[in-house]
């Protein structure tokens, strides 16, 4: 068998880089369904997985795709699916099952323009709130957003590592531009790639409790066939995994599901600052829009406007503390995103009135130019 990791320098699309990142992370099951602009992830893995001992299947729809991924994950195999808006909508129900049953997996959404069928071949960042709240009920979720093919390669590995660490579906919210653009992607040696696998239960099987949290708030996870006689349900369940229809059990379960994320924010939240130290205006952006924001900062600086950029790598959980700290320092915020203000409103919420927040956004279909951002910086401040 050839080595699984394609070490070397490549000129590939973000979608292919994502697929290669999955292989490098140890993903060995992919259940998918074709949809623009995520199809190339599915295609690439159909060719790559059987050669590395993995399994690929194109399911009958996105509901089945995510269901198969959850099932595969419980056999102990790292599993993934990839989709875009309409498919993402269909996956919401079983993303909820994944959260409730604490099933590690990765779901990639290469965003296109919505609502509905929208502009299938053009980029948007309109699913940020759906990623946060799209499945019913309360929950915490981890969402990452890549700005380049190189970054989506690494982020896919991070997504797997986080999903294995915290036992939940981790979402990657890319966009059509990052998915379809070709750039240089360096894939390092296997020994330079850090991968994490879920912790496994130890001790007596007859005393085993499926959801008894370990030191980081996450329960070790057995695989089907190991003799633990596990019962897994999407009903509200106790630490044994048994359904228990009481208010107290619900409270306890929710504390577990949300606590494991909220108590590890430092490990989960990743941002990147650019010329932010002396900035008077903080641009908040992510994904492809962060790249236009980066050149907007340089352009603005040349005109004497003291702008800086906070690039969100983790979108959810939201970097509330970072925004609050900035709010005490800067004259204002400008959020740059290809939607009508989904993250902008979050920034506003976290700033809590300490600094005004403005939006550079549009309903999707085209990239936001740096000049548009600079113009807003000039006019607003």
């Amino acid at each position, binding site marked *: 068998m050839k080595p699984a990791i394609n070490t070397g320098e490549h000129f590939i699309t973000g979608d292919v880089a994502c697929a290669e990142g999955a292989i490098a992370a140890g993903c060995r099951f992919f259940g998918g369904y074709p949809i623009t602009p995520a199809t190339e992830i599915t295609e690439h893995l159909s060719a790559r997985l059987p050669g590395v001992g993995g399994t690929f299947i194109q*399911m009958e729809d996105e509901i*089945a*795709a995510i269901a198969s991924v959850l*099932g*595969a994950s419980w056999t102990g195999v790292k599993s993934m699916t990839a989709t875009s808006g309409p498919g993402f909508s269909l996956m919401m129900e079983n993303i909820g099952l994944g959260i409730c049953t604490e099933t590690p997996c990765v779901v990639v959404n290469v965003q296109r323009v919505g609502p509905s069928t929208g502009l299938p071949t053009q980029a948007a960042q309109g699913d940020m709130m759906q990623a946060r709240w799209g499945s019913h009920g309360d929950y915490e979720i981890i969402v990452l957003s890549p700005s380049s093919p190189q970054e989506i390669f690494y982020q896919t590995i991070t997504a797997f590592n986080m999903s294995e660490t915290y036992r939940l579906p981790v979402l990657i919210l890319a966009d059509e531009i990052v998915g379809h653009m070709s750039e240089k992607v360096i894939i390092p040696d296997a020994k330079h790639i850090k991968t994490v696998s879920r912790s496994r239960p130890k001790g007596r099987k007859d005393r085993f409790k499926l959801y008894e949290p370990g030191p980081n708030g996450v329960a070790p996870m057995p695989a089907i066939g190991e003799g633990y006689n596990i019962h897994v349900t999407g009903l509200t369940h106790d630490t044994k995994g048994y359904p228990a229809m009481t208010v107290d059990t619900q409270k306890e379960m929710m504390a577990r599901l949300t606590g494991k994320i909220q108590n590890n924010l430092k490990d989960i939240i990743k941002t990147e600052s650019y010329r932010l130290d002396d900035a008077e205006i903080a641009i908040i952006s992510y994904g492809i829009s962060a790249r236009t924001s980066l050149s907007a900062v340089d352009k603005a600086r040349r005109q004497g406007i003291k702008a800086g950029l906070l690039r969100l790598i983790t979108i959810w959980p939201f970097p509330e503390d970072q925004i609050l700290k900035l709010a005490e320092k800067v004259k204002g915020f400008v959020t740059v995103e290809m939607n009508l203000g989904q993250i902008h409103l979050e920034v506003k919420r976290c700033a809590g009135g300490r600094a005004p927040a403005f939006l550079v956004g549009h309903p999707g279909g085209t990239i936001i130019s740096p000049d548009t951002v600079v113009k807003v910086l000039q006019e607003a401040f």
Partner: protein
Amino acid sequence: MAKKTPKHPLDDLIRKDRIPHIWCPGCGIGTIFSSCLTAIKESGIDLKKFVMISGIGCSGRAAGYVNLDSFHTTHGRAIPFATGVKLANPELNVIVFSGDGDLFAIGGNHFIHAARRNVDITVICVNNFNYGMTGGQVAATTPNMAKTTTTPFGNPETPFNLPLMAYAAGATYVARWTMLHSRDLTESISEAILKNGFSFIEALSPCPINYGRRNKLKPLDQLKLYQEKTIIKNDAKPTELDINFEKGVVLGKFVDIERPTYGDSYNKICRPDKLE
């Protein structure tokens, strides 16, 4: 000294700490469930290598009572979940145990595709002609003109012939029994477990609380129908399997053929070097 309670031969396969179960008196699910457990036990296969997957509904609760690795998934999605389990670990014996509403209305699309692909799983469908869990609404299996809470004037629709659908979609094993024919049912489930391919068993079952009550079918009358108005006819033509108790309902094993499974074909076509 406390009295020793006698041990039932299937006790090991039950999560006793989950009893009492939720099924109503007179319900047929429990009988079908114990046929399934008997077949599992008699197979002689290592119990660790079994997994039971259910969807949502009264029958979907089976996964919560079986003392095996078991999953109570989302409504209609037991089959694609099971597909992922089986493909990621082909060593496992995967049994989907669920109801007609779950498997054939909301989950109907998944059923036909798993049968077409010939995923090596066993699907047991408790068919009680309605949605019991939610209080007795019309299902894709409700007989024409039957009364349910959402067909108060009688059902204007035509029900599915499930074995015909399984056959047409490509299932390699298809059988139908009633809960009264528990020995035949157990035998069929045993065969289905050992079958290398997609197996489907329809098990007719009374739901006295929701279906029977609205259609003047007392629990005992329904069992009488199962006894008097059924005809065992192995290899009957799938097109002749519509359910009509006036004419008589055909039971038996209708399909038992060999065809490469998805897993076998995938290995052969996508990783031929691994096979050498």
